[in-house]
Each structure stands twice: as structure tokens, then as C-alpha cells.
């Protein structure tokens, strides 16, 4: 479920969530809680930030004994 909040209209919600930057994307479920700020133009960072990166990440080569 995605909820969109305009901080100018509901500043108290921003206060409760301790949001500083706009726009901010908060992923609650599944845990862990993640925050991504910015206009989401950097796709890789968004995926990394939301922790939805696949386990077999090409960036992280497996340790070979």
C-alpha cells in the first residue's frame, strides 16, 4: 500500500515521522524500515535503498576459499 502525504498540508505528520527532505519515500513493510530521499531518478540507489536488491548481487562477488 502506498500513501502519499503533502507535508505542507500535514506538517504534524512530517514532524511525527521526523522527515526533513522532500520528497521522502519510506518503506515500512517488509522490515527493515528504509528511507529514500530525492526524486528517485537514480534507479540503482532506489532499489538499494529499499533493500529489494537481489541476493546474487553482481557488485558483491562471493568469497572463494
Amino acid at each position, binding site marked *: 500500500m502506498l500513501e502519499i502525504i503533502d*507535508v*505542507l498540508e500535514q*506538517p*504534524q505528520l*512530517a*514532524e511525527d515521522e*521526523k*522527515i*526533513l*527532505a*522532500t*520528497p*521522502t519515500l519510506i518503506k515500512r513493510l517488509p522490515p527493515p*524500515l*528504509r*528511507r*529514500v*530521499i*530525492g*526524486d*528517485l*531518478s*537514480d534507479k540503482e*540507489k*532506489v532499489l*538499494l*535503498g529499499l533493500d529489494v536488491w537481489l541476493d546474487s548481487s553482481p557488485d558483491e562477488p562471493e568469497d572463494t576459499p
Partner: protein
Amino acid sequence: MSEQTPRTPAVTKLATGIASFDMIAEGGLPMNRTTLIAGTAGSGKTVFAVQFLAAGIDLGESGVFVTFEESPRDVRQNMYSFGWDLAQWETDGKLAQVDASPDPGSTVIESGSFDLGALLARVEHAVRKVGATRVAIDSLGAMFSQFRDQAVVRNELFRIASALKDLGVTAVMTAERTDDYGAIARFGVEEFIADNVMVLRNGLDEEKRRRTIEILKFRGTDHQKGEFPFTIVGSEGIVVIPLSAMQLRQKSSDVRISSGSAELDQMCGGGFFRDSVILVSGATGTGKTLTVTQFLAGGAAAGERCLLLAFEESRDQLFRNASGWGIDFESMENEGTLRVVCDYPEVRGLEDWLVRIRALIEEFRPQRVAVDSLSALERGGNLKGFREFVIGLSSLIKHLEITGLFTSTTASLMGGTSITESHISTLTDSIILLRYVETFGEMKRGITVLKMRGSLHDKDIREFTIDADGMHLGRAFRHVTGILSGTPVHVSPGDIERIWSHFEADAEREAAQKKAT
């Protein structure tokens, strides 16, 4: 800058409520503007920021505290020791905190461009919620370290500053410096909030910390210039010691009071002046503490309250000494005419001593204050700090029309002056010297009134003795010369006559010349 509002005639000031600060700021902080408070770590920036809000709340104003560094919980806890109950104020709707402190539990990923519109909305919301007139932002350094894109933060800060202006609030922002004397602040923040800059310093000098506050500039309005020492007191927060502002308003009375010794009164031309500062200088054991004891006894006898600040001897020693001279400190204290405060000078810095002494004076309201000895306090700071302390103390005493008696210990046994003396003699109204005089295998004591501002006094160096009744003044040392320089030389009566005859011969010659012309 974008601050030009052509209709505004002049910059008005908001009295912060921090009395000593308002004095050096000549009224307070520029109203409806943002003032940058720059300082190194531990220089008191956060304390000032919170005190600014606390003083406003005391005056019936509301405030908003934006924290980038400590969590609101930590801020409440840390500031509670100053007597500022932030939690209570928040409940009462006098204070709102905007929590922008970093959350250690969550990582923030920056993906693409962003602004701090949410923060701005929260600050505006908080200001409206409590009807705030004061905002404190602590600290800019912590704000910058939360984001990778510094240019955005700088730009957003500018937006926040101008939004605060539109809201009609007076704000302070704290910023870190790496060095007490250098660039105003890191991150180039002074570029956009450079209208009003204050610097707090916490310099290390001769192993002692010395705090100073300087108003670098208040654009379009006046302030006192230079660094002013300040201290942070547990119950009050920041207390600035406004030296230049204190000195000028002294009254002067010609009421005489007794020194506690009728003979010394006579030497001084009828006693000390009511609101004067007297310095008693002498080597160890010449009778300084006795002079102090008599001065206090004289006050108590006249029904005056006396405060003794003793830095060299313990309470028991002082009481025993006094009873040795026939003075009962115990009963004076029981009657409420005497209060004795004994402490090592090292327990606090000189600025803190000044604040402590002021608090003692305000509480006890004495007519006489004695400090035994001032030299001991020299160890509490550097020379400049010590001089400032003495200026502060003497002007405080004079302002309240209190008679002050300070003692100063000379380093050498015979003659000589102490550092204390050479640095403060111009600040005192009267100077009494106690000196050892060596005469034919015997140590005698000599006393002279070196200076007595606004009065005639005895110019003799007189011998005095001490017995169970205190000090007794004897005759002048007529046959000894060089006492003050520490090298007494005995002169036979014949030599004295010869010297006098020179003067007489000179006088006769002059008279003869006058006749001739």
C-alpha cells in the same frame, strides 16, 4: 542581501532577557533577524541558544527549538540542570521542539534531487502552533553532515532564514568553528546569514579555560566591541561579565567609616570612605589578616553586615586568630553581622568566582566585604583575567556602596611590590602598606598610608605592634630610611640635621635671590 525593506527606519532590538548579554548587545538581538552564533566545541553555543528561548519564555514569549544534533530528550535532560524545564514548557505550549536529529536506526539514501521543504514546513508549523517569537536552530554543522549534497543544504538554509523572517521571528543559529581564531564558521554559512554574527570562544591559556563572547557585527545597529569574559553558571546559564559597561556608573560618597582601629582611622584622616576599595599590601605575617579582622569587627560594632572571603586560611584558623586579638567571630556570626566564606581559589575560575561573589553579596547584602587575599586568586587565571576580575569586583562593590578591603601578599619579605599591587593599584582608592623594618637585630613592623583618594592622610611610616588587643600604632620611624625599598638604613640624628640644614640653606638662598630680583 534580500533583507532590504525600504519602509523600515531602523533595526530594532529584542531584549533577550539575559541581562548581562543585553548590556553588551546594547539592547538585545536584532529583532526579526537571524543571528549566527559561531564557536568551537564546548564553547556554550547550545546553552546560549536554549537560554535565548528560556529567557523569552520567562518574559511570556514562546519559542521553537530545532535540533539537528542532540535528540529532544537529551536536550531536555541536559538543560534541566540550568533550571530550564523544557518538558514542562512543551506541555504548557510555550515551547515546541523540531526534532531533526539523526536517527541512528535508519539509513537515508539520497537518490536524485531533493530539498528540505518538509523541514521548513515543520518549522513553520511549530512556530504557528505555539505562536513563537523566538527560534533557535542548533546546529548548522550537524545539519550539513546529514546530507551529502552540501549545495542543496546551503540553499535550503537560506530559504529557512528568509522564511523565519517572513514569520516575524527573531532567530539564532549555531555553527561550529574548528578554531577559536579563524574562519567564522565551516560550510561557508556566513555567506547567507552574515548580517549578525556572534562568536563564543573557549580558549586555553596557561592550563585554564577562559570563555569569551564577542559580537562581531550587528548590521545596522550598535553593540559593544571586543571580547567579554563570560561564565556558565549552574542556575542561570550564560553570565557575561560586561567590564566596560560596569565601570562608569559609580557614585562617590564622603561618608567615613571606621577601619576598626581608632589609630588607623586617624592616619587615614578620619576613617575609610564608605564606597571605596582599600588595598592592604604586605609580606607574610605583617598583619594583613589582622587589619581585615579589625575592619570586620569595626563593621560589626557599627551594626553593619560584613562578608569575609578567605582564600588562604581555614575557618577554624581565622576564628582562632581573631580570638587571639580579642575579637569574637563566632558571636558576630551568630548575630548575623558576619559571614565567612573559605575556599581554595582553584575550585573555580575567576569569572565563576566573580559570579559567586556577586550572588553572595546579593544574598547577604553586606556593607563591608573583605578579600583575604587577592593574591591567592591570581593563581586562578592569567593576568588579563585577573585584572578583569578585580575591575569587576571593585565596580560591583562600589556600585552597591559597599566598602571593600583587599589584601595582597608581597613576594619578598622586605619591601617590594606584588604583581597584584602593580596591576590593581590604580583601581583602588586607598593603599595601606605593611612592611617589616629591620633595626639592629630586631624585626619591627611599619605601616603607612600610601594613597588615600580624596582625603588628607598621615604621610609617616609608623611603627606598630600587635598584642592580644590587636594593632597598636607607635611613633614614626624618624631615623630609618629606605623602608619601602626594602633596604632600611639607619641615619644618625646628626645626619638628619645636616640634611635639613641643606634644605634650609636652599630656602635661604632662594629667598635671597628673590630679594635681589
